């Protein structure tokens, strides 16, 4: 069964220079393996398309039922250089909640 990520996880995003980080946290620890299986760095990179110029890295935090993504070259130069309304990537986490993932066991 496919559902938007929002059904099983919440997110918070922020910046480090031109890199955006997105923390993705499963509401229920039982869904953490689904996140690990479905939410790969490649899928996140493909989801954001040309918004993310650099690579996407993924880190696992099983203790928090969470994944952390680093989206490199994603903020138009970042910080004070960027001309974007969301130069700090504050809304990237919410954007990712749209991603459809398969939650079948």
């Amino acid at each position, binding site marked *: 069964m496919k559902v938007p990520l929002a059904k099983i996880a919440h997110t918070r995003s922020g910046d480090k*220079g*031109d890199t955006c*980080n997105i923390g993705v*946290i499963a509401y229920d620890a039982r869904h953490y393996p689904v996140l690990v299986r479905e939410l790969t760095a490649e899928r996140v990179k493909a989801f954001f398309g040309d918004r993310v110029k650099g690579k996407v890295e993924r880190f696992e935090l099983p203790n928090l039922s969470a994944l952390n993504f680093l989206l490199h070259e994603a903020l138009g130069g970042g*910080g004070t250089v960027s001309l974007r*309304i969301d130069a700090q990537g504050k809304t990237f986490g*919410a954007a990712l909640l*749209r991603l459809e993932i398969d939650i079948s066991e």
Partner: protein
Amino acid sequence: MIHQPPNPNPQPPRFAAPLRIANGQGFWGDWLEAPVRLVEQGPIDYLTLDYLAEVTMSILQKQRQADPSLGYARDFPPLIGRIAKTVLDRNVRVIANAGGVNPVACAEAVRKAAPGIKVAMVLGDDVFSRIDEFLAKGYCMANLDSGESVTKIRNRILSANAYSGAFPLAEALATGAHVVLAGRAADPALALAPMIHEFGWSETDWDKLAAGSVAGHIIECGTQTTGGNCQVDWQNIPDLANIGYPIVEAEPGGTFIVTKHPGTGGRVHSDVVKEQLLYELGDPQNFIAPDCIADFTTIHLEDIGPDRVRVSGVRGRERPADLKLSISYANGWKAIGTMVYSWPQALEKAQVADRIVRARLASLGLGFEEIYTEFLGSSACHGPVAHTCPDPPEVQVRIGVRGYDHKAVVRFTRELIPLVLSGPPGATGYGEGRPPVREIVAYWPALIPREEIRTSIEVLG
């Protein structure tokens, strides 16, 4: 950091645990009432205040260049004036990185605002005047993101500070000062310092130092850990207007509880704390602080009661050989202008307006590093992944330019308002007039060997 001796800690631990450490400022510009409420609405032992973001130091450096008595967080001295009586009555001690690039002037201003307050300063993090010395020693201070040598921007540097750790702050606490002021102390160090001071932790207690750094990370952004900016059940988080700022109740063994004063708004729950733990996080196994490296994959959270989350199990490793440098430099100019178009065909009108402005800029022969346009109301935040909204009621076109030619950027700011009469129908929302031109102060993260940074303590009062 070099200390003589490394960690004097001459006082025996004062406190029967737990030690209550609060944070009343997540950034310079955070709620002015927060620190006042924290000291008045319940017991705390230490009040930390984080005023510095990555480019704040450069703004302060410019202020000091214009006026040698400035260069610090100017909200801080009046705040201390306002809470001085309460902190003295209740024996609360304040730790802040409000000193910016001029801790001495900040300390003097605090003494003027609150004459009974003894202030200790941590000095030595400001290395603006030592860049050439470092280069001569062979330190290239390469940009941690791009790898380029700092020589590329040498002539445009506006400020340079080392992120100092918690041990100099603990040394300053050992003087008995009511207020401890630092320049660019690392954010998590503000909360770790009182634990070192009160519990007598050593420079090699890696797990405990990591736990204290995690505590600092959890509270450093203020209410982001008590229900602010929280996605989980956000509509039902109570009374955000009176949101409580975070408090950690720390134990000598390195465990702690995250909470807030009773009767305040917001929510402390493991879901909320998880969001903050992940905020601005890089590699979770290598959270690098000046005093240790913390492993975020060892953190154990437990909800032990309403608005109480227990944090335990934190493991740490030896601190890195280098300290991080925060260098800022002038990087050209930018301006951003907007115009609003209403239904019908709001998006099409905004797109035509953008094309007109770009055509006029091109015909003027103006060169920019970048011209960037967004359409607010039509996927500016989420870009191509946003859902589409056919014929929205209004759209704001937002055009930004940046470049090294100041005159070109100024001319751009003259090219928007003419659209009111000469572009698509129904332009509005231009009441603010021409947009301001801002200097871009960019951030250059780098490393410097720890032994190059020598901090010292000075006391006023």
